[in-house]
C-alpha cells in the first residue's frame, strides 16, 4: 500500500474547479516535488492533503499506518509570526500537539523529542532565543524541527526556500535531502525552483493546464516540463 494516494481528485474553492481528475501515489521514501504556475492549485492540493480543505470530489487516502494528522507540515510564514514573542523551545514543542489528544501538558517524552529535533537542526544554542530575532534560515529550521516533532514518516514543505539567500537555500536543500535519504522521511515539496526540483526529487507532479506525474527522468522529456525548463530555473 502506498503511503499516500490521491484518487480522482478534483480541487477548487468557492465552487470553482481548478484541478480535475488528479491521480497519483506516493511511496514510502519518495521525494516528490509539486510544480506549476501560480494559481494552478498547488496550495489547494497541499491543503487537501493536510485535511484543511475538502476536495470537490475524489479522495486522499493514507496508508502504511500514516494518519493525516501525522504529516509534518512546514507552512509559509504568516504576518502574525513576524512579531510573535515566542522562544524556539516553545515553537518546536508545539509540534508535539498531535500526540497529546486532550491531555493539557507535554510529557517528558515529548520534551525529549523536541530537544532531539532542536539538536538535529543545529539550533541547541538558540533554544531560549526569541523566534522573531532569528535569521530567515534559522526560522525555517525552527519550523522544520517543529514539523519533525509532528511526524516520523512524511514532511510536506510549502516553498521552504522562499526569501532565503543562495547560500542558505543550498543548506536548506541539503538538510531536506539528508532527512529524505538518511532518515527515510518521505518528502513532498511545493516549489517554484524547477532546477532544484529536478536535481533533488525522484518524482515530479506538474499541475496546471497539462498534468504530469512520474519520475523526474520522464518529466525532463515531457511536454509540460519543456515550457518550464526553458523559462530558466527560477520561474515565477
Amino acid at each position, binding site marked *: 500500500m502506498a503511503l499516500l494516494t490521491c484518487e480522482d481528485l478534483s480541487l477548487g474553492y468557492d465552487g470553482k474547479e481548478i484541478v480535475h481528475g488528479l491521480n497519483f501515489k506516493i511511496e514510502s521514501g519518495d521525494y516528490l516535488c509539486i510544480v506549476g504556475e501560480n494559481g494552478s492549485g498547488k496550495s489547494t492540493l497541499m491543503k487537501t492533503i493536510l485535511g484543511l480543505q475538502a476536495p470537490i470530489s475524489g479522495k486522499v487516502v493514507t496508508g502504511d499506518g500514516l494518519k493525516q494528522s501525522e504529516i509534518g507540515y512546514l507552512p509559509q510564514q504568516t504576518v502574525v509570526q513576524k512579531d510573535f514573542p515566542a522562544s524556539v523551545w516553545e515553537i518546536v514543542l*508545539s509540534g508535539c500537539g498531535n500526540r497529546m489528544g486532550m491531555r493539557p501538558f507535554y510529557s517528558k517524552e515529548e520534551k525529549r523529542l523536541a530537544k532531539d529535533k532542536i539538536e538535529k537542526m543545529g539550533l541547541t544554542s538558540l533554544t531560549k*532565543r526569541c523566534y522573531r530575532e532569528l535569521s530567515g534560515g534559522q526560522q525555517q529550521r525552527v519550523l522544520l524541527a517543529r514539523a519533525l516533532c509532528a511526524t516520523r514518516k512524511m514532511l510536506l514543505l510549502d516553498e521552504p526556500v522562499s526569501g532565503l539567500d543562495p547560500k542558505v537555500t543550498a543548506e536548506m536543500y541539503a538538510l531536506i535531502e539528508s532527512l529524505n535519504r538518511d532518515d527515510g522521511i518521505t518528502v513532498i515539496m511545493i516549489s517554484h525552483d524547477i532546477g532544484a526540483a529536478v536535481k533533488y526529487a525522484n518524482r515530479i507532479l506538474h499541475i496546471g493546464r497539462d498534468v504530469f506525474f512520474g519520475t523526474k527522468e520522464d518529466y525532463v522529456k515531457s511536454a509540460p516540463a519543456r515550457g518550464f525548463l526553458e523559462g530558466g530555473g527560477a520561474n515565477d
Partner: protein
Amino acid sequence: MTELFEKLSLYMQYPFVKYALIVGVLIALCSSLLGVTLVLKRFSFIGDGLSHVAFGAMAIAAVLGMTNEMPLILVITIVSAVLLLRTGQNAKIKGDAAVAMISVGALAIGYLLMNIFSKSSNLSGDVCSTLFGSTSILTLTKTEVWISVILSVLVVAIFIFFYNKIFAVTFDESFARATGTNAGLYNLLIAVVVAVIIVLAMNLVGSLLISALVVFPALSAMRVFRSFKSVTICSAIMSVCCSALGIIISILAGTPVGSTIVVVDIFAFLIFTVIGKVSGGAKE
C-alpha cells in the same frame, strides 16, 4: 504620607472598598491573560467592539424592564463574540471592519433605545456611567462579587488547562489544524471566555475603556519579554498591580475608577517601553 495611609486603612474597613479591590484585581488578571492572545491574533479591538455590544444589550434589558440584566447581556455578548472570531478566517467582511461595524452599530442602537424608552430623569448620567464605569464598581453587592470570583477562577483555570493549545492555535493556526488540533473549538472557547470577561469588566472600567485592560498589559510585556510564557506571566502581574494601584488612587483622590486604572496602565506601558529599549540595546 502617614496621613494617606491612615485614610487608606480607614477606607479599607468598608466592605465596598474591599469588594472593589477583589473584583478589580480579578478582572484585570483575566483580561490580561486573554489579551496576549487577542493582540497577537490582531483582535485588539474586539474588547471594544464586544463591550459596545454589551452596552446595547444592557439598553435592551433596561427597556424590557428586567431586574437581573446579567444573563441577557452575557448571552448576547457571547453570541457576538463567536460570530466575530469566526469571521476572522474566511468572511466577506474582514476582521477589523466587522468589529468596527458591530461596535458602532450596537453603541448607536443602545443609546437610541435608552433615549426613547428611558424613564430615568438623568439619562446622560446613566449613559456616561455605563460608558465609563464611574461608580458601579463601588456599589457591588456580595452576590455580584461572588459571581465575579467564580467566573474569574473558571477563566484562569480554562486558560491554564488549555495554555499549550491556545499557544499552538495563536502562533500557527493552519499547522495546529493540520496536526489534528481542533482549532475551531479553541477559537470558540477563546471567544466565549472573552465575552465573559468583557461583561465582568463593564462594571469596573465601563464599556469604552475595556480595550485598555486587554491591550496595555500585553503590549507592555511584549516590549520587554521574548517568550510567550514570560509575556503572559508578566502581563498578568502588571495588570493586577496597575489595577490595584489605580483603584487605590481613585479612592484616595476621588477620581473615576476606570480612567484612573487606564492612566496607570499607560504609565506602566511607557516605563516598559523604556526598559525594553535599554535592555534590547544592551543585548546587541
